[in-house]
């Protein structure tokens, strides 16, 4: 069992007290958790097929040719059609996910040109993009990529930023002075140009893009950690630990870091919005993840290029604004909960 110290418990209670932050956090947690099962919610493969008394679970199975279900083709079964066929023949039934489209699937309808407007009968709840791919499907898979990109980037930049900042603050002296200058110089490297140059030479994938954003993004946290460590290291409880003979590692990990927790937690939501924002803008500019990766930035680009198909830009902007506002609400609530002025008194 994790025993939270009362300070953390009190801060958590105060966080819950800020309603919009707490509800945003709950919604975000559900959304992030749902990315584990996006395939079950948005997919062109059926969840369950019962054909002539046999059960099939195509979402987590291999490719099944149409002939499996008595259809006259050997390429992958179109489960939406199969559903209609089985309903007529009575040989079985098909349960489709709520959004029965894949983000890569190009849908065409007789007598219409893409983009198709939202149409509940076709189950394109948010319409399709200019290539005929379902907007909701692309939003869902784009969200999965963006949020995990942002979370992994967050962990990487925080681990390195905190470690370096903490070391600079704790050891001080020349290493601190040199470290600061190096970081200042490094911070002034124009990240966007570097990424554009690299993206024009190679096609960046998820990890390369993350690596680039990480290499140019870990510095932010060092400043705050450096100052916080300086402040904590000068306090008497650290001196007391030192007089007991505690090692540097013990002092940093048992004493200083737990006491800078509020600072670290406060920055997390803002780092998440930053990560999502970076990925989306790079995709928008065309230097992000390669097509046809589902991406909000690419969708945004399509939307602004096709303003007469207003459903594209409306969907993606609402999703983006909604997500960023929720994360910001969480950030605000955390900041208020951890505000030291509200629950400490000077003796």
């Amino acid at each position, binding site marked *: 069992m994790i025993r939270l110290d009362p300070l953390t418990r009190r801060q958590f209670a105060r966080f819950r007290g800020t309603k919009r932050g707490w509800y945003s956090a709950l919604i975000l947690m559900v959304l992030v958790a749902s990315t584990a099962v996006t395939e079950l919610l948005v997919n062109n493969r059926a969840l369950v097929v019962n054909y002539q008394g046999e059960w099939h679970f195509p979402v987590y199975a291999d490719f099944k040719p149409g002939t499996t279900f008595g259809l006259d083709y050997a390429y992958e079964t179109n489960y939406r059609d199969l559903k209609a066929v089985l309903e007529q023949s009575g040989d079985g039934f098909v349960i489709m996910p709520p959004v029965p489209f894949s983000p890569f699937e190009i849908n065409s309808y007789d007598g219409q040109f893409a983009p198709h407007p939202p149409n509940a009968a076709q189950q394109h709840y948010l319409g399709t993009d200019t290539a005929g791919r379902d907007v909701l499907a692309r939003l869902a898979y784009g969200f999965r990529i963006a949020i995990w990109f942002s979370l992994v980037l967050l962990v990487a930049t925080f681990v390195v930023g905190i470690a370096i900042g903490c070391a600079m603050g704790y050891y001080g002296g020349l290493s601190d002075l040199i470290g600061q200058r190096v970081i200042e110089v490094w911070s002034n490297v124009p990240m966007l140009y570097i990424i554009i140059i690299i993206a024009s030479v190679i096609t960046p994938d998820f990890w390369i893009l993350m690596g680039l954003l990480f290499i140019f993004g870990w510095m932010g946290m060092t400043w705050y950690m450096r100052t916080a460590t300086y402040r904590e290291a000068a*306090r008497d409880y650290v*001196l007391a630990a030192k007089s*007991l003979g505690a090692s*540097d590692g013990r002092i940093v990990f048992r004493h200083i870091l737990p006491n800078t927790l509020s600072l670290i937690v406060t920055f997390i939501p803002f780092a998440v919005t930053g990560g999502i924002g970076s990925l989306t803008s790079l995709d928008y500019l065309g230097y992000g993840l390669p097509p046809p990766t589902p991406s909000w930035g690419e969708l945004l680009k399509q939307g602004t290029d096709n303003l007469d198909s207003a459903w594209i830009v409306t969907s993606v902007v609402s999703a983006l604004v909604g997500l960023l506002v929720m994360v910001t609400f969480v950030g605000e609530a955390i900041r208020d909960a951890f505000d030291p002025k509200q629950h400490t008194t000077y003796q």
Partner: protein
Amino acid sequence: MSLLKITDLSKRFPVKGGVLKRTLGEVHAVDRVSLTLEAGETLGIVGESGCGKSTLGKTLLQLTEVTDGRIEFEGVDITHRSRRALLPFRRDAQMVFQDAYEALNARHNVARILSEPFEIHGMPGPHDDRVLALLARVGLGADAFHRYPHEFSGGQRQRIGIARAIALAPKLLVCDEPVSALDVSVQSQIMNLLMDLQRERNLGMLFIAHDLAVVKHLSHRIAVMYLGQIVEVGPGDALFKRPKHPYTRALIDAIPVIDPDQAQPLKPLEGDVPSPINRPNGCAFASRCRFATDACRQTRPVLGPVDDKHQVACIRADEIDLSAF
């Protein structure tokens, strides 16, 4: 062999400034201090704010680096040692801090705070029994075990601080104004606890305070510090009855007298303490001393014997008559 012997200990802090962070000068926080402490003895150190008495305590415990001088503990030189080499000394010498709340990690409960000394010194756990014994010794109940520092009163927190300090059965305890942040009623409880512990364990104690009355109550010997130097040291009685340094005399006069019939008009010291960066060449106290002569302003006094236990750093100590102040 003394428990603790300090020879010419100095601690200077560089003053940096300018773009290139050059060293512009030095603050002489502790300036060539020598003293000894025997087992079972309490040495009180008094002086006004900023005179370097806390820095002296922290420096002799090697919590900040020694600039100059030598510290011997039980005859062994412990100056400039690595953390590992200092571990045995850490076991034997502990500190009680002024602000107990600052000195306790607010995120650790009492059990964790008091187990830490045993963990650091590699004793096999669990430490619960040891912690409970410590709590009992400092007069706290077993219910304190799972509680956090903010749940205690100031006096109770100081008891926790003392419990941590005596956890490893030290031989030397440096008490850095342990009662000055407490209510008067609680002060005497904590002082009694410290005195009991000292008698019980034959502790050598360095008791730092700015309040001469407190120090007088529990010290065998008293050292008076002024601007980083010891100006007078001697047995408590001798120092109070026959002070030899004008500064000591001024400190004694500043103790409030409760009986209004005996109260005398206060004769506060005039002038300011000189800057510890640009120390005067002569006696540091000369700028505020009514007996100062030109010789005082030019020659730096050194501690010299008054009798075999009493020493003073004043070149006019024999001439001036402080009883007729």
